[in-house]
C-alpha cells in the first residue's frame, strides 16, 4: 500500500473542492483542489488554516459529478494552501480512483 501511494503520480488540476471536518457543527471549507494523487491532494483555500486537523472528507466537483475520499490529516501550509492526506485503506464504493483515471485520460482540469 505504501509503495503504491508513493508511486502514484501527482496530477495538476483546477477543481472546486470542499473539506468536511468534525461536527456538529460540521466545519466546511470551500476551495480549489490544485493537485491530486492517490494518497492525497493540495488544496487552495480562501483563508489561512491555523492548525492541522484529523479526520473528515474531501469532496471535489468535476463535470457535475461529486467524488469524495476519507481524509486522515489536513496539514496547513502558507498562503491558504493545505495538504490533505487520505486514509490509506480503500473504502467500498470509492469514487476517487475513477476520478484519477479520468484525469489521467484527458490531462486533468475541470
Amino acid at each position, binding site marked *: 500500500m505504501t509503495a503504491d501511494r508513493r508511486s502514484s503520480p501527482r496530477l495538476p488540476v483546477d477543481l*472546486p473542492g*470542499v473539506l*468536511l*471536518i*468534525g*461536527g*456538529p*457543527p*460540521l466545519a*466546511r471549507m*470551500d476551495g480549489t483542489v490544485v493537485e491530486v494523487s492517490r494518497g492525497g491532494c493540495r488544496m487552495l483555500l480562501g483563508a489561512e488554516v491555523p492548525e492541522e486537523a484529523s*479526520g*473528515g*472528507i474531501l*469532496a471535489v*466537483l468535476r463535470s457535475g459529478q*461529486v467524488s*469524495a*475520499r*476519507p*481524509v*486522515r490529516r489536513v496539514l496547513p501550509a502558507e498562503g491558504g494552501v493545505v495538504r490533505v492526506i487520505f*486514509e490509506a*485503506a480503500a*473504502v*467500498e*464504493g*470509492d*469514487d476517487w480512483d475513477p476520478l484519477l483515471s479520468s484525469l489521467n485520460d484527458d490531462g486533468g482540469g475541470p
Partner: protein
Amino acid sequence: VKVTGADPELLIDACGGHVVLGAPDGTRIPLRCRTTDDGIAVLSSPGSLGEHLAGMIGGVRLWWPDGRGRAELTGTLSPGRRGSTLAVTWPPTHTQERRHLRAPATGRIEVRRLFPDGTASGRLLDLGAGGAAVVLDHVPAWWEAGVRLGVSLHLDGGPVVAVATVVRGSPGDFAAGLRFDTMSATAEDRVVAAVLAADSRRAGR
C-alpha cells in the same frame, strides 16, 4: 439479526430487538447482545449455556436481513470469561456486511449540500453504517433524491462525517433516507458500535 451455524444448525433471531438463539431441538434461548471492541459482539444468556454451545459449534454465519437483501458474515463463536457469555468475532474487514447493520436511533444530524452550498438539520430515525433515515426540521427547496450531501452525526464514540446521497425524499417531504457513500474506517466503526449498542439497549428492556 440471524445467526446460523452449519454443524449443528443454530439460529439466532433478533427481530424486534430480542435476541433469541434456537437450537435444532426447538429450544429457544433469550440472549443479550452488546459490543466490546471493534468486531466483537458478546451474546450473553442468563444461564450457563455459553460454554456448552461453544463446544457444539466451531463456526457461525451471521446475516442481517434489512429488506434489501442479505449480508453474510463469517464469524466464530467462542466462550467468554463467564460461562454464560459467547463472543462472536469477525474480521474487521467485512465492510460490506457491516454496512447492512441498522437500528432505530436517537440524535441529531446536520447536512450540507456539497455543490452549491446549502444546509439542513434534523433528527435520526434509524441509523446504519450504510445509511440513515431522518426527519428534517425544515425542508430546503433543493432537497430531492440524488442530491449529494456532507453529513455530520454526533455519536457517543465521537463525531462522524460522511458523504451521503438522498435516496428517498422529494421537495416538501420531511422524512428522508440517506445512503452513506464515503466514510472513513474510523467513522464506520463508530456507527457500527452505535447501532449494536442501540440494538443491545432495546434487547435489554
